[in-house]
């Protein structure tokens, strides 16, 4: 059978107006349904004809999934809220600037206007073999084409590889983990709320998905508790191009510093492993220590222990070491004036 790309296949377009209807549709059609938020990931798959769902459940008409609501304990962000809206929201900027900064680094302004938070955390891997329709593990096959003696794997994982070496490309995910966000999922059995880091799956558990959503499940909202509101935040994304690029790596941290010492911290990195990595060992090691370059240095070295580079991605080890260092100890700023 000959292959052709760039022509979207025919499917039934279902446009529910409520979250309940959306979830019911997903449940009814199960594996045959494709859920679409902003479409930034979906359209690639569809236009390449690699995914051919029977129905496409378009969430763009579900208003209740949009918007940012403040509650007694933090904020709740509808899964269909656009990244631009989040980046501009005064409450997010004031209390959860980490997330604002993370989403401002996603792709390009046009994509942020259309892309949603739910979509950003639920997007699929960007391994070019997988995206190219190669029959790899993640596509249900028996092979990883990136981790071979000649595989092109500059963007791939240095941690957590299990047959598949693709990385999770989300920029918002590590920020949400650092903010201890909770993901609200409507399932056929009712509402389920999971911690941010538990939303993501590694290939050792399920090699075909990056997150825990099963057919019939719908991510409806992300709640950020006030626990980390106004903490010391750090986000940095390193990418090849200054706009419209996925991360080579990103880091997000939330620190509570008291008397110059780290009272508490949550830190996560992404694009180093198939799932966003919360660095719990680093968190434990730096708690109680001064928030300075020395601690950052130590944290960076600790963070990369156990990393296994591939042929073309060894640079990710010093990059991760330095990003973790900066997230904790800060950046040594330049002083030149001209």
């Amino acid at each position: 059978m000959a292959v052709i790309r760039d022509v979207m296949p025919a499917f039934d377009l279902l446009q529910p107006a409520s979250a309940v209807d959306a979830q019911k549709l997903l449940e009814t059609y199960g594996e045959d349904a494709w859920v679409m938020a902003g479409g930034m990931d979906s359209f690639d798959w569809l236009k390449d004809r690699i995914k051919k769902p029977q129905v496409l459940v378009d969430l763009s008409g579900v208003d209740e999934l949009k918007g940012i609501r403040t509650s007694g304990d933090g904020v709740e962000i509808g899964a269909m809220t656009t990244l631009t809206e989040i980046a501009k929201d005064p409450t997010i900027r004031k209390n959860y600037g980490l997330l604002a900064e993370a989403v401002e680094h996603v792709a390009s302004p046009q994509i942020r206007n259309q892309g949603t938070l739910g979509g950003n955390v639920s997007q699929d891997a960007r391994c070019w073999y997988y995206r190219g329709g190669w029959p790899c593990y993640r596509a249900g096959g028996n092979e990883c084409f990136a981790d071979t003696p000649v595989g092109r794997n500059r963007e791939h994982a240095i941690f957590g590889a299990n047959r598949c070496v693709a990385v999770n490309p989300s920029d918002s995910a590590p920020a949400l983990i650092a903010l201890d966000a909770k993901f609200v999922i409507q399932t056929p059995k009712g509402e389920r709320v999971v911690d941010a880091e538990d939303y993501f799956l590694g290939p050792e558990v399920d090699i075909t998905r990056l997150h825990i959503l099963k057919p019939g499940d719908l991510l409806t909202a992300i709640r950020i508790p006030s626990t980390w509101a106004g903490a010391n935040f750090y986000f940095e994304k390193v990418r090849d191009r200054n706009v419209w690029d996925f991360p080579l790596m990103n880091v997000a941290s939330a620190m509570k510093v008291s008397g110059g010492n780290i009272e508490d911290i949550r830190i996560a990195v992404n694009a180093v492993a198939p799932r966003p990595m919360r660095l719990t060992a680093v968190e434990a090691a730096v708690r109680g220590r001064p928030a300075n370059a020395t601690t950052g240095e130590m944290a960076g070295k600790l963070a990369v222990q156990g990393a296994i580079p591939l042929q073309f991605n060894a640079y990710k080890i010093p990059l991760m070491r330095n990003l973790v260092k900066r997230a904790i100890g800060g950046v040594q700023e330049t002083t030149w004036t001209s």
Partner: protein
Amino acid sequence: MPAVELTKAESLKPIPFGTGYKLIGHDFSTNDLVAKVTGASRYAEDFRAEGMLFCRLVLSPMPHARVKRINADKALAMPGVKGILTPSEVPGHANYVNDNGTMIKADRFSELALADEPMYQGEPILAVAAVDELTCAEAIEKIEIEMEPLPFNTDPLDSLRPGSANAREEGNVWVPNPPPSRESQLAAVKWTDEDFAAEREGKLPMGHAPEEWSYGDLDAGFKNAALVLDETFSTEDVSHQCLEPRTTMAFWQNGKLYLYTGTQSTMQTVPAIARWMHMPEDKVVFISEYTGGGFGSKITGALTLVIPALLSKKLNAPVMMRVSREEEHFIGRARPGIRARTKVGFAKDGRITALDMFLVSDAGSYGSNGDGGACGQITSLLYQPPAMRWRNITVATNTLPRSAQSAPGGMQAIAIIEPILSKAARKLGVDQVALRRVNCPEGKAQYGPPGPGGKRAYVTSCYLKQALDEGAKQFNWSARVARPKQSGTKVRGVGVALSCYHGGTTGFDGLIVITPENRVRVYTGIGNLGTEAFVDVHRAAAEILNAPWSAVDIVWGDTSKNLPYSCHSGGSQTIHAMTRAGHAVALECAQRLKEVAAKSLGGQPVDYEVANLRVARKGGGAGMSFAEAAKAAIKLGGIYDGHDVNPAVNMYTKHSVAGHAGEGLVASATDNYPHDGDSFSFLACFAEVETDVETGKYHITDYMGYADVGTVIHPAALGGQVLGRSVLGMAHAIGQKWVIDPQYGITVAERFYTNKPPTILDVPVDMKWNALNIPDPETPVGARGCGEPPVGGGCAAITNALAEALGDNIFQRVPVNADTILTSYEAGRPMQNPFLAHI
């Protein structure tokens, strides 16, 4: 027209733009601008015709294979599917004589629009036409294609290893036939394990190279050198990635083919279409008013345009072939990557004493052009080594076909040599600008090896030293060099690079009709690929006719409108070639106007002058408007209204003049102005970068290009060219690339977000440019082209600035990215394999 004596070259200073002219050197809005800004412009994809079908391509999944069997029965049985086009239905290789009388010999190694032995993954092997694209796609997925995989190789150096696979059954290396033939043959060339021993030291192996030239005393040059560097450097294969893909629509009417597609030349695409279709040129009507970029890949359209034309004929319906971004990656051409090893000797002051260049050029799957030849020529011109040897081996690989891309060979030469100059300057303690100044070409600088007569070729003029000096001043070079280099985690560096490329050709025609409506209607067959040059050149004609620009209409983009023989908008030739043609036809037009006036009003033509849409007696008195002159010309007939034609013009122009007969005063002329040297344009390029050594991420914080391009015709457009093409060069430095899996020979990065052409945020916000505006003495308007010359400088100024910031042991290839810097900066030596292709 200002004239310049070359002997005074050294003392020449920059001239303010527009000095002495009413139109030339002044900004204006080009005729296509409003349509482009408002979206009214129609590109090939925007056209529709009644009953139009769509066609889509089937691309080869294998890098080299033989199509054994195609079973499209199920596809053809589908409702809405109208037909398929197979390789056997595409006209094959055949000799062709065009209307110019030029014989184009069949090349059995060249590609056809559909291949039964695809040479690269992504090569079109079949086309399907249906009522819409969805039906096409569903039909394609029902087609069974049996293919036999054949040996392949996607890495040129690997192709030279003992026992490795050849890209084509005939061999892996293009070997030139003995002179005077300019053709090459494929042969199998393998180097030995001993040849490859150098690879272990990070040096490019140098086995047998079938192409070689030299001049000067190389040994003496190296012997007398204070410093000798032996450097390995590789440039990347970079796709053209035109924003407008090679979409084409075609239909047949009354035995004529009407074809719509993007091109760099309206007139010269016609013979190409006729040659590819095996049909007479006068049966081709070609429409291409707007083109979304070409960069050398659409000189005469693209070979794949025959697919909808053939399908349209077969199915008796208009056919639109929309080319997707992925398909464009495959059929859209690319610049050859070159692996180079260059040994350069320097005197204490940085003057090059000898240069020995060895190149492995990747010509891809079709054609023998790996850019190696131009790479040697530009090196020889731009750095003026007194002794030089050039060796080159052009390797065929099962990768995308290469074609000229802005400054073919020149860009690679500059990218390869400039880092060596920078390193030498650091080692010798010589300022970077000063080192380049002592190596700078000037005046009628010679280049290349001696020709058959023993003489070396030379340029028309070169004022690069002035550009370097003026540029350094404007860029505050000395002050920037003196600033601290490191602060916090950031290091910064400044870089300078020389740059040059061809700047024009000669011998094309102009065609002007003065209409009874008092308009100056200029016809042009140049392609409108977005650079504005296709309009700018006519400012020269308007200047000569002393006509207000508002009275000038430009007619372009449709061969049924009878356009003259024009240059294609490629090779940086347009501004040079067509201001000459414009100059010639304007003089001819003015002369005919004077003759008509003399015949109508009495006196001799010499008694009259042309200005402000009137031809009138000098010093006042009788005169007539252009409208009146046009009417008079129609009455006079013959040479005045196009019933007779200037015998000097090209055959195409003669046809077109005949088409305009009786429309007004019809003037045509050809450029036969004398021209001694070869036209080249030059630039001095400056850049500053700031690198964060903890992330490897760097930013270009400033950039300036200072041009020596002769007379500036349209400053805003020239600025666009200088900076736009500098950005193309920067793309090579900062990230644009291919990624190919060598096991399967398959491209895995075929979209913008994986090929990574730079975005607007990857270049400085306020890049600067300037130009000397010193006229070229060998062309009447003094203007040369600037489409290509900035590219190499745009790349090398960045890499030189990076090396200044980070040291010499960071990279041996472009692009340079965070990964290169992070690993190499810590290790203190280049950590990236300099040879491995397409990583």
